């Protein structure tokens, strides 16, 4: 605030203990002039929320937090609906203050948006104020995809298939959206603190936390009567990438070749006391000599060759990822792809549509 102090309006709401406030993960700034004014965050339960600047005095800034539905977010980003309509429709509104240290304090729950802060009827996200990140979020259009189910399935299969698919989807989302700062930071932080299986889980869950609802794989239909379907609404490019990776390892010869490579890498890691696999909890060895680095680079190249990911090689390098980080990511991905392959090979899962009706058991 640079003008003479003008007091903020008093708010009549219920004080909220900061410990009961959800954790928010920053996804993107949508309006940004000399700092963020409207930002997209994800709540710890997966709900998208907007952080909107409201007011300030000479000591603090005041912000609002309110939920936004998937369809509303897309419509707002496309300039089809106003922020006013979203504010009026919001079923909850939290307000907090930030001071010099930017820590969030004085949480208040309000029943409705104060009139003084309500955006105008014309509060559309116009191109001249939307950030590049906001424009990027709507440049990908979701579409429906059907995963075919078939054969004798168990509850753990119904848990395993969507989980593995979601993790692979998150990985490709990260690779394809590394230009979004929130995605890039997530990848970098996970790589810096990789601890075996914890690192792999953090990578996939971290990427999920920076995937806004409009980009997540949304369940539209779940039907199983052998055969059955999981109908998803998702970004088609990620589904294509998963399909391509699966195609690369589905045939036995190709699978055997990549398995041999996997085992070679695993043995190499063990021989050189390099840690970081799913089943290890010890800390990472980072002091690699030049020969080791060269060997790891060779393994990375081989893996990329097997999976046909020349473009990802460049993106990995662009974020300053070391060979060992690249390998850890690749192997974490591969282990999940390999597990999903088991369902495909067993005739229980089809990644590109329904099984024929007469193929049921």
């Amino acid at each position: 605030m640079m003008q003479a102090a003008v007091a903020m309006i008093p708010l009549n709401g219920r004080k909220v203990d900061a410990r009961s406030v959800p954790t928010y993960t920053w996804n993107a700034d949508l309006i940004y002039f000399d700092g963020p004014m409207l930002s997209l965050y994800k709540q710890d339960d997966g709900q998208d929320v907007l952080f909107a600047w409201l007011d300030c005095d000479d000591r603090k800034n005041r912000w609002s937090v309110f939920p936004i539905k998937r369809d509303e977010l897309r419509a707002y980003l496309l300039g089809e609906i106003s922020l006013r309509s979203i504010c009026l429709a919001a079923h909850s509104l939290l307000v907090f203050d930030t001071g010099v240290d930017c820590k969030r304090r004085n949480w208040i729950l309000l029943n409705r948006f104060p009139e003084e802060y309500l955006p105008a009827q014309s509060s559309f996200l116009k191109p001249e104020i939307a950030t590049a990140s906001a424009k990027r979020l709507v440049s990908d259009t979701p579409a429906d995809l059907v995963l075919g189910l078939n054969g004798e399935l168990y509850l753990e299969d119904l848990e395993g298939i969507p989980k593995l698919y979601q993790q692979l989807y998150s990985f490709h989302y990260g690779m394809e959206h590394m230009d979004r700062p929130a995605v890039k930071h997530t990848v970098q932080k996970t790589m810096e603190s990789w601890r075996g299986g914890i690192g792999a889980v953090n990578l996939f869950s971290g990427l999920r936390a920076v995937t806004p609802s409009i980009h997540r794989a949304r369940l539209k239909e779940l039907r199983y009567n052998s055969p059955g379907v999981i109908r998803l609404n998702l970004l088609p490019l990620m589904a294509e990438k998963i399909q391509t990776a699966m195609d690369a390892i589905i045939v036995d010869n190709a699978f055997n070749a990549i398995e041999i490579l996997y085992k070679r890498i695993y043995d190499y890691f063990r021989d050189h006391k390099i840690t970081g696999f799913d089943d290890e909890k010890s800390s990472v060895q980072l002091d690699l000599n030049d020969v080791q680095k060269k060997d790891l680079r060779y393994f990375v190249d081989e893996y990329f060759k097997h999976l046909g990911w020349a473009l990802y090689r460049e993106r990995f390098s662009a974020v300053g990822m070391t060979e060992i980080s690249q390998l850890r990511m690749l192997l974490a991905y591969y282990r999940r792809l390999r597990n999903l392959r088991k369902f495909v090979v067993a005739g229980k899962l089809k990644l590109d549509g329904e099984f024929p009706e007469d193929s049921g058991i």
Partner: protein
Amino acid sequence: MILFGIPQTARIVLLFQTEVDTVSQATGASCPPVGASIPNGEAWRWVFAPMSERCFSPVAVRNPPRLSRAKDALEQCSCWGLSMHTSANASIAAFKAVEAIFPRARKTLGTHVAVGQLDGTIGIATPPDQHGHFDLHPYKSAPFLAAFQTAGVIP
């Protein structure tokens, strides 16, 4: 020290060089971004009246800073830049669109528009986007008050 688009002999220290370098190291991306260069031309900025040096303080060092995350100052390069436009029309159109969303925008962004002539003494600027907006990363000795004049109240 990381500077871009400038001959070695002409390199001048940015106003927040240490902080900008920290952002570069933390993110693995250049700050100021690759493509930023010495500006040459008219620039319009939202300011308060009377205009003061504080009108040209990046958000990260304002008191209080308008940041919803404490990490922004460490991770966001633009926190150390100043928002500007290439024309009065672009500046005013953007402000009107912002004010429609944030009724109290004049308390934090400014009440007037100021115009200045940018050259090699002011700082390094990102390329303007298609709506004429860019970020200026000021030099330590940038003579903002001499370079900018208030042009009027934002309508």
